[in-house]
């Protein structure tokens, strides 16, 4: 069958599942007075449309920052403004200052869902297709299969089309950045990533690998000659892009400071709610949130994040290849997720994106991680009334990706990039069948996640521990993430300095 038809079928399947998920509820549906992220996005349309730019991030009589004040960088604000113009055309009531607070209707929901679909089709989906076609090994059928699996990743679909967010914009732009760098178009890649960063500040999780890759590449080209010239060009591109995005806020020094204050709310504490990272999990045993002062918490989290990023970044700096770059993205975002300040459970999507990009090389581990990442958001999804799509999309992703990528067959030690492990243990455990152990662990872990999902929905928590189930979910996920960050770090660091090992092709 021709390539174009295969690609169209793949995209249509991705679009159908996205739109079908959008039928379900969204964050904060029918829950006054605050509602949820859906209302936040609608409110930003209202604010950006009705108020002048210099008031967007400030607390004024017209703009109460306590009611979903803007806390994403300017590009999100501009995007909301564009949506607001369309909203005004369709029904002015949707963006009426004050009067539209808590506005909910069937056609408004259709409009909001349509805006997500629009940006998805424009930014994220083309990036995925380009990535698969340029950087995936194997026949064109294998590439389309990989694209389909990436498009069916449940986490992103459930958050963007269920809970309601625009992660496909920031992740899509970051992916364009990765594609650009992979093709050798450094300026384009830097531009795309800077735009991503200016859309959501969480993209900082990806910034170290981008920096180290580009710096490493320039160093290899010679810092006195071409390399320096390239570095200068890239830096200029980044600075100019930043300046253009922040232009309306540069007239008054108070503006950028206030925006930064909104983007990085250090006052809000080490973590909120239950999230599958170190601090929240540690807090179960030792109440670090109350034990340590705010400054100590900040310092500790900063130090540990940097520490866990160091090996991966240095390795990338010394060997700037695409494979190293992808692994560094995984490791960096996981390190940030596990140790950073004010991490939300949705931030796991930042780690999920680069893992999607290695799904063709290490299918079993990637699928395992992607399912765990979806599971880690279960309490949020249940709160939003998205249990049915969660179950269906997770099961569909599990079976289809295992089938299409032949994940269970491609799980020999070499395929799992664990050759070095075999060399280490060869002497005292010669009969160790790592492949079988990993497969058993995989199925056992899935069973555990299914069991916890089941009991957290069907059973009532004991009165003494009302938060038992969310805590259970976050601790189980945290342990998995810890294992994954160790695994991916080992894979990246243990790669020989020579050309990368032969990958299995179909």
């Amino acid at each position, binding site marked *: *069958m*021709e390539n174009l*038809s295969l690609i*169209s*079928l793949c995209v*249509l*399947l991705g*679009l*159908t*599942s996205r*739109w*079908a*998920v959008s*039928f*379900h509820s969204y964050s904060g549906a029918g829950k006054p007075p605050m509602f949820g992220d859906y209302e936040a996005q609608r409110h930003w349309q209202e604010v950006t449309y009705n108020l002048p730019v210099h008031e967007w991030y400030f607390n004024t009589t017209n703009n109460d920052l306590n009611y979903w004040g803007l806390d994403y960088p300017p590009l999100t604000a501009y995007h909301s403004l564009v949506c607001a113009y369309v909203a005004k055309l*369709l*029904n002015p009531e949707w963006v009426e200052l004050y009067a539209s607070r808590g506005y909910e*209707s*069937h*056609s*408004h929901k*259709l*409009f909001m869902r349509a805006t997500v*679909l629009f940006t998805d089709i424009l930014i994220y989906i083309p990036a995925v297709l380009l990535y698969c076609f340029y950087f995936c090994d194997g026949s064109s*059928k294998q590439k389309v299969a990989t694209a389909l699996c990436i498009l069916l990743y449940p986490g992103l679909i459930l958050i963007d089309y269920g809970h309601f967010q625009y992660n496909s914009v920031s992740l899509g732009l970051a992916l364009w950045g990765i594609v650009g760098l992979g093709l050798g178009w450094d300026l384009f890649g830097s531009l795309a990533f800077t735009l991503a960063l200016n859309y959501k500040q969480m993209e900082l999780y990806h910034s170290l690998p981008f920096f180290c890759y580009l710096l490493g590449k320039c160093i290899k080209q010679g810092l006195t000659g071409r390399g320096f010239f390239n570095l200068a060009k890239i830096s200029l591109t980044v600075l100019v892009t930043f300046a253009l995005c922040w232009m309306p806020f540069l007239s008054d020094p108070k503006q950028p400071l206030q925006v930064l204050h909104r983007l990085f709310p250090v006052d809000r504490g080490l973590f909120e709610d239950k999230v599958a990272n170190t601090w929240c999990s540690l807090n179960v045993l030792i109440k670090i949130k109350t034990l340590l002062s705010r400054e100590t918490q900040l310092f500790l989290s900063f130090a540990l994040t940097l520490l866990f990023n160091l090996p991966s970044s240095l390795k990338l700096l010394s060997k700037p290849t695409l494979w190293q770059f992808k692994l560094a993205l995984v490791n960096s975002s996981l390190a940030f997720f596990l140790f950073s300040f004010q991490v939300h459970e949705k931030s796991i999507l930042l780690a999920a994106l680069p893992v999607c990009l290695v799904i063709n090389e290490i299918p079993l581990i990637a699928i395992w991680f992607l399912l765990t990442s979806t599971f880690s958001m279960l309490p949020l999804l249940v709160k939003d009334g998205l249990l*049915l*799509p969660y179950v*269906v*999309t997770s*099961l*569909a992703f599990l*079976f*289809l990706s295992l*089938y*299409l990528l*032949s994940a269970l*067959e*491609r799980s020999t030690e070499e395929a799992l990039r664990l050759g070095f492990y075999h060399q280490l243990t060869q002497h005292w455990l010669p009969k160790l069948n790592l492949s079988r152990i990993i497969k058993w662990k995989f199925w056992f872990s899935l069973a555990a996640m299914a069991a916890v999902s089941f009991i957290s929905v069907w059973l009532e928590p004991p009165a003494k521990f009302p938060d038992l189930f969310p805590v259970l979910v976050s601790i189980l996920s945290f342990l998995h993430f810890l294992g994954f960050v160790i695994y991916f770090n080992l894979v990246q660091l243990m790669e020989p300095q020579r050309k990368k090992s032969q990958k299995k092709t*179909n």
Partner: protein
Amino acid sequence: MAASMTHEKSWFLALALGVTFLKCLLINAYHSTDFEVHRNWLALTHSLPVSQWYYEATSEWTLDYPPLFAWFEYGLSHIAQFFDKEMLVVQNLNYASPATILFQRLSVIVADVVFFYAVKECCKCLREDKGKDLLAKPPFILTVLLLWNFGLLIVDHIHFQYNGFLFGILLLSIARHFQGQLPQVLSRLFPFKRGLCHAYWAPNIWALYNIADKAFSILGVKFKLLDINKLPKASMTGGLVQEFQHSVLPSVSPLATLVCTLLSILPALFRIWHRPNGARGFLRCLVVCALGSFMFGWHVHEKAILMAILPLSLLAVESREDARIFLILSITGHYSLFPLLFTTQELPIKIFLMLLFTIFSVTSLKTLLRKGGALLNPLEATYLLGLIPLELILNLPMTCSVVVIS
């Protein structure tokens, strides 16, 4: 290689699971009054003695399927009580709690297992085709054409019906016939009181007849040939089931439609009587009869076009002529089902699934049967492509008005 061998063995499961997951995602989509029809049948078979089943008339949706289906609903009702007992109360008209919706949708999805089994059996009846890549194998193509059939998906899993289950039984009997066993075909009841056309007109000859009648009556009044007061008030598209009279042309009686149908299928029946052509000949005759009944029958539902499309799929993967006819029939037939889903929310699903099925059927059949040039001639291709601007023109005013009103 190891990977492609697994693909060889388990592609059917992957396709079946995939479509099942899609159906599960559509559980909360729009459903039509047919949902209430089946809930009512669950309730009355559960609460009343058998002798009362075909007399019960609390709801307007009285039982009008044969006894076997009534027993099927009776069986389902025993499981239904574990989901929500209230749905089994006959007086609870239009009861649609989340548990009710979940149960009913799941019952359609589970009943489709019969369809899956039938499709698997049909694949066994195809001629052997070794040495081809999976996507170009006739069993694979046929499985997608049947399991992922656009019409079945939107009629059964959005609009709400049990056609998959019923077609499964039909396809199973076709497969058994291919395999050398006698067919057991189910017959349908003919509700004569329901009127010449169903609420949504099936695109058959009587729809054209109605249009001609309407046109003549309007012209007649305009040119003062007819008196507007003497014309019967014909509200044929009102969405209600009722008898109506034609204004200018002679009214059509059930007997007339029966005669027309029989005349249309007589040549095919005659041919198969005189020169039976084995299982394939039988299947061809089946398709002709389905089309004849669709074109000339009394109170035909637009969904009945599936009765011709699904069996034709079997023939389409083996012969160029049949593939040509299948493409024209399925694309037009599926498009004719569009009015069943008129909500804005379901519009993207309609379009995506239609494109999915159409692109797959056109490209796979083209690749499979490429010897001898293009499958469709330019005129046919233009006709089919013309459906796209038609849909755009029809949709634009509707979407705008829906949005503005709310």
